[in-house]
């Protein structure tokens, strides 16, 4: 019985995690973390690689780049 409850609770927790991760990704809240992950994966084996940008520099770069094209419609 108790085990059953525990299982349901775990499932709920998992669902909440999925939802929360979705919201974070949708809003761009986790953009920097994903960038760091990408940076670590893609440049792991290369030599003389540029160090990853700081959080502040990354956010600044993204904001400036994102607003160069048409981003909003009528």
């Amino acid at each position: 019985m108790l085990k059953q409850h525990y299982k349901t609770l775990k499932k709920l927790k998992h669902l909440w995690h999925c939802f929360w991760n979705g919201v974070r990704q949708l809003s761009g809240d986790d953009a920097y973390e994903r960038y760091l992950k990408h940076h670590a994966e893609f440049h792991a084996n290369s030599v003389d690689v540029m160090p990853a940008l700081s959080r502040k520099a990354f956010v600044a770069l993204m904001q400036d780049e994102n607003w160069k094209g048409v981003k909003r419609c009528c």
Partner: protein
Amino acid sequence: MALLGSGALAGIAFNRGESINALWLITAAVCIYAIAYRFYATWIAAKVLVIDETRATPAERLDNGRDFIPTNKWVVFGHHFAAIAGPGPLVGPTLAAQFGYLPGTLWILIGAVLGGAVQDMTTLFFSTRRNGRSLGQMARDEIGAIGGTAALVGTLMIMIILIAVLGLVVVNAMKHSPWATATVAATIPIAMIIGFYMRNIRPGRVLEASFIGVSLLLLSVFAGGWIDHNATLRVLFDHEGLSLAYAIIAYGFAAAVLPVWLLLAPRDYLSTYMKLGTVILLAIAIVILRPQIHMPAITQFTDGTGPIFGGKLFPFVFITIACGAISGFHALISSGTTPKLLASERDIHMIGYGAMLLESFVAIMAMIAATVLEPGVFFAINSPAGVVGKEAIDAVAKINSWGFAVTVEQMQQLANDMGESSLFARTGGAPSLAVGMASIFGNAFGKNLLALWYHFAIMFEAIFILTTLDAGTRVGRFMLQDMLGNFNKKLGETSYMPSVILTSAIVVAGWGYFLYIGVIDPNGGVNILWPLFGIANQMLAAIALCVATSILVKTGKRKYAWVTALPLAWLVTITTTAAWQKIFSDDIRVGFFAAANDLSAKLVSGTLPADKVAVAPQLIFNQHLDAYLTMFFVTVLWVVILDMLYVCTAAMRSGPILPSSEVAYVKTAL
């Protein structure tokens, strides 16, 4: 079975002479979308586009962790929807409701399913196969330099007209309304606070910042009410249309010159949340409340005498409702931004086709919010003073003479309920939509808060209209800098301050002029600007469909080319007819030259009142300008079409054509 269900619903909803329930419209819409999505879009994906799941997308091949990122399809859907759904689908249906609820609703449904969603989906697909190239680049690659230039010039022009008309909508919502003006004004410092927070205090913490921002926005609606009740403060925010127009022009210039992080980026976040939240809330409220539609299915104004804008049902309902049925602007989002995020070609079905259906659904809700109002009230709010008269008593008499019941007391009571001094002649669609939304929200969630709901709705509309205004001005500036860069390299640099100021000033002056004329025009300005915007937007859609059709023909899918050629033929018919009427019609409320001649004759004969004599020369000049602008739009459109036809015939005869610019196949590793 689904077909039967929707057919039955449509039958019930559309065949009864009496008033119908809004829920029928919603159900019919959802059924039609479901069938179209399941069958038509699936067929297009499989047979026409031949989507290949094994093919690596640009996001995978060019992954750089910044703009090219393979992204979860729901996240891309969210981004894409937030980008395409602006104020257009809210304003267009509200204006088109003057013909009754039926014509607009049918066009929103059929136009989206066969036109708009097809355009978005095919453009997204072709751009994905071309490394996320923009519509203009694709037009140049596939049709030729003329098509490319036309797309570019078209985009710039449409941007200018769009911003002017949206600015006018906001001005009309704030005119002599201290509550609305104070609330809308408060959104500017709120955006700045959030911008500073996201850039410097807690960089990139979007959710935290948005939560604070949305709370502050809601607070500003209350604060606006408090200011409205404070005798000394309220005069600070009580302004004429013209002063508000100047304020918006100054704001537009500042927003284009200021760095994006300070104003534009944070405002964009806030407006996206407000938009999604409000649309969901409205859908829930309509389902809970199941309001009755009070507007007749079809009104007598299909003959072209409508008070909100002149012109017959055909072609003007199709011009008035652009966004929500088919919008060329979407092709700019579907090419460029979204293709760089797709993880698999499979997602094109849901994102390209599905997001447009959702936008169409927003348009249906706007139509419902407009038509649940008593028709008399709807026309009292939306008819310009130039048509029904300046005095309340004249306006009411005129509207009664059309057969729609409304009284001065009723309008006064409504204005009091909404916390406004008057609701007569508040053209542009925003105030009537806000009244409609407030009454729906009020009935569903508590009636004593009507004034708060009304100003919440105004704030909600204003915030993303201003976002479009900022973003549009900036895009116009970039495009102009790009063009000027061909003549002078320095002017083409996006960070060169003199160039930034010069190009921003040119773009702002462009839309500022149309906004100014729109405000001083006694017929409300919307009558002129909205059709002009519709023609420009449909023209851009036609260009996008030209690109798609020519690619289909060139790649040997001639037998399926009707999928894009059919909506293209329809768009060409309506834009050309509308443009023809706007230029040559004898009706002074439709034809630009007719209006100019009529005004000149009155000026010469001295029958104009003194206040109109002063502005008459400007209005005459503007009518001429609008006529030439319309001619320009149609010429550009036909040049692109002839160019496309030439490319298509050459392809069919295996003559010399530009090769397809599709990127070679690479197998996906995802």
